[in-house]
């Protein structure tokens, strides 16, 4: 227990200055470029559009996780901040997907062939 509450307050508000190294940032950048090249290559594969959409979104989710974790430093923040931000966002986006998206696939299957 601290006898100096003011000092402890400052410590609590002060950001954690663990922001990674240049080597780490360059590695993340290279990984992001590599995933982009994979995406462009995949785009020329002739697969059904819903399959392609799923694959591309999957790769984009990996890229966004890299950006959020390392470039936006969320990996270095307290777990509480992650819990505040990410599950809520994922829940809201999932609701949009669950409510609206199945209809678009159903419409596609209802087309006259």
């Amino acid at each position, binding site marked *: *227990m*601290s006898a100096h*509450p003011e000092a*402890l*307050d400052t410590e*609590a*508000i*002060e*950001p*954690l*200055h663990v*922001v*990674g190294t*240049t080597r780490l*940032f360059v590695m993340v*950048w290279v990984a*992001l*470029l590599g995933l*982009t090249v994979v*995406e*462009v290559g*995949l*785009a*020329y594969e002739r697969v059904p*559009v*819903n399959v*392609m*959409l799923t694959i*591309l*979104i999957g*790769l*984009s989710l990996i*890229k*966004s996780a890299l*950006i*959020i974790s*390392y*470039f*936006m*430093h969320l990996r270095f*923040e*307290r777990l*509480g*901040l992650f819990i*505040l*931000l990410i599950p*809520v*966002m994922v829940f*809201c*986006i999932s609701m*949009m*997907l669950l409510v*609206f*998206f199945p*209809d*678009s*696939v159903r*419409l*596609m299957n209802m*087309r006259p062939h």
Partner: protein
Amino acid sequence: MSHSEAEFTADSAWSGGGSPFAINSKKLGMWLFIVSDSLTFSALLIAYAYVRLASPNWPRPFELWPGIAKSSLMTLALLSSSLTMVMGVAAAHRGQRSRTVKYLWATIAFGVAFIVLHATEWVTLIHEGVTPWSNPWGAPLFGGTFFGLTGLHMLHVTIGVIYLAVMSWGYGSGRFEADDVEVSGLYWHFVDLVWMFIFPMIYLLSVNYKS
């Protein structure tokens, strides 16, 4: 405040005496803005994906050159801008003002390159007859979704460029602190992150196989 009250306030992160997330209010505010803005983009992208899947005659106008090559270059520009931005934030936390300003200007340069490339892409499509309500190839919603999504993103990039220019001037002159640079970095990385979804969904899902 009595001594015991002060101890209680300091010891419990949730009692109002400190920040439970160990970040300042500006950074928390930016994170909350990013979450709300990401929901805006998510709604638009989900709506786009809906009509894209449900429209059998969706146009595939993006040939390797210029559409895919240019949009890939734009992706490279934004990813590189994120690298310079994160290096700038790291330099700011080390107290290297001059180096931080240089990184910020490099980020701005990549952002401007993105806007210029994107503007030429818009001009090309407009010359080919694409409007928000029609196009010469197929589903009329193509133009509306393309201009709507990329336009909103380009607006964010433009605001980001202005924000970073103000930050560069303010941090260089000592008006802003390293934390302010970090908050501007969060915004810029978010703009990059959104493009990671727009690029594959708008461009790669509509490539012209014949190219």
